[in-house]
């Protein structure tokens, strides 16, 4: 069972904010972590390896400091790591990212399974998994929360739906995207971590030339979508604070709602538009 795991280094997202005055992304002092779903992807790979043998290669595209997450991955049980790092890769959308990762996986060559996270917490698109699968011509199963069995060239998994789940049998090689529910992750073993940071660490760094891509096909230059503007989410409404004792504020509130044609007890809410028949 040879497995490639895709991992991304991401900012500790819950802390990323825009400066409300400048609209500037405030990233100062924000730590970088392994994308949470990817930690589960790696854990799933390690468990499959423990059960079936084989090798795990982790692959990450990112700036030089992304070496931290690939080292951590080796600490968690990956055998080898490849870091794709080149200034030509910068600014990639998911099209260019999936081409780059796909090319690198072709170069890695031998695999039965590719596992990635469902979604990265910064870009948040959840597009990379299916796009890499298509690039490589592999079947995909997304939203996987249980890897039940690997037998006879197939994998049996459960995938989450909004209102339940499906059990799917998929031919190998295949690509899976996993969600956090799939397992509980382990802490990296200290001994492994020390090795992962040493001179002999099994980490290879590839640039654009190493994987044989032209710089016009990767990074910003190879992207099909472009971010043209970023801004802070709009919040503001004209908030009116209602004052008085409980009985009074509730009475005022109901008056306000009525003034705005929200009649609560008349079989639900009827707004002005509903009355005029504009809403269905």
């Amino acid at each position, binding site marked *: 069972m040879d497995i490639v795991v895709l991992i991304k280094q991401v900012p500790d997202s819950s802390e990323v904010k825009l400066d409300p005055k400048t609209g500037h992304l405030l990233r100062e002092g924000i730590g970088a972590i392994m994308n949470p779903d990817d930690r589960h992807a790696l854990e799933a790979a390690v468990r499959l390896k423990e059960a079936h043998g084989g090798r795990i290669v982790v692959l990450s595209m990112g700036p030089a400091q992304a070496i931290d997450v690939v080292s951590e991955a080796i600490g968690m049980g990956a055998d080898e790591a490849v870091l794709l790092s080149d200034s030509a890769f910068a600014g990639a959308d998911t099209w260019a990212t999936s081409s780059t990762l796909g090319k690198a996986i072709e170069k890695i060559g031998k695999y039965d399974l590719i596992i990635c996270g469902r979604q990265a917490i910064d870009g948040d698109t959840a597009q990379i998994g299916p796009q890499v699968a298509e690039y490589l011509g592999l079947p*995909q199963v997304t939203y996987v929360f249980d890897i039940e069995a690997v037998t006879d060239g197939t994998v049996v998994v459960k995938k989450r739906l909004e209102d339940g789940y499906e059990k799917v049998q998929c031919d190998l090689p295949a690509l899976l995207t996993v969600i956090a529910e799939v397992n509980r992750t382990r802490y990296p073993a200290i001994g492994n971590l020390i090795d992962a940071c040493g001179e002999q660490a099994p980490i290879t760094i590839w640039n654009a030339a190493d994987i044989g891509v032209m710089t016009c096909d990767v990074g910003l230059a190879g992207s099909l979508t472009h971010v043209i503007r970023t801004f802070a*989410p709009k919040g503001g409404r004209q908030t009116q604070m209602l004052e008085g004792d409980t009985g009074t504020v509730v009475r005022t509130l109901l008056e306000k709602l009525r003034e705005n044609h929200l009649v609560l007890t008349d079989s639900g809410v009827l707004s002005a538009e509903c009355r005029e028949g504009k809403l269905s």
Partner: protein
Amino acid sequence: MTVWVEADLCNGCRRCLKACPYGAIEFSGEKASVLERCTSCGACIEVCRQSAMKSDIRPRSVPDFSDRKGIWVFAEQRNGQLAHGALELLGKARQLAAELGEDVCALLLGHGVSQLAETLIRYGARTVYLAEHEALADYRTLPYTDVLEDLIERHRPGILLMSATHIGRDLAPRLSRRVGAGLTADCTDLEVDPDEKILLQTRPAFGGNVMATIVNRYSRPQMATVRPGVMEAHQRPGNEGRVVTTPVSIHEKSIAAKLLGAVREKKDAVKLCEAKVIVAGGRGVGDAGGFRVLEELAEIVNGAVAGTRVAVEEGWISADRQVGQTGQSVRPELYIACGISGAIQHRAGMLNSRYVVAINKDPRAPIFQVADWGIRGDLREVVPELVRQLKSEVRQA
């Protein structure tokens, strides 16, 4: 590739600072400079009116897409039931179509689903492409991709919208890679750029802390997934449409994934997206018993109960009632937030509510910033009082 500033041209307007998605521009005095974390994304170059931002990024020419016409909506259905998101997309598509002077088509795939075409037309589709086959009965990635690829190649649409549901987020990226199109994820707003006539696609990123507007200039169709619950569905009773049946040939063998079984976990799936009133609770509700009072209120006003991630994690409400970034997006007429602080990830799911009432004992809670009416107080007093007054109103009527 690098980006640099021609200092003589820079007039210190700071447009680049605002535009940079990566915080890679700094001002020392009145001149911009580019920091190391620049990814050469080019956002600053686009906004600079002085042409002071320079780069060695080669300009790309935009191909001629004048033959790409039509706004397509993927009409997601499961077990013969249309996803509400599909109807919402039709509502938005009609609005875009009016601005672009183009037509709206819906794509309906499945087995024995032709009766749904009528609904799609009633909600605004002018053409319904219907593809029926046994192998399309349940959604599976590859046969659905094959059929849609074929339709796109033959009819060459300009825009393709899908709901950002589990199916949409499985299918859209696969299809985009197949047909060579860029794809914007999980949009909450779509507009037409008045000059370029391309789609301006706005979406949250970084866990909802940042909104980004994205364009799809170099490929067609312009593909986007749209978060369910943020657009409005509109019936158009007079709308006339036609159904075009497309031939499908699928080899069961070429389908690498086999469905072994499906389990639906809730019989009465909660339709928060269709509720007119939502009574939502957070940590401040205190316990499951506290939610019973919220339920009572919801019952009187014929609404639905929802809550924050904390309320779900505490086990007070089921996960399908979570509103927010990782839950559902809702747009009721009235959203009553009880004991909810209003974290950005929660607000992301309820911002489109028509009116918002917030009840919280902390006057600085951010939920008040997005409320029309705020009540500073203990929800354990306010909510029962609301129930009492509403009940007496009913009695009087």
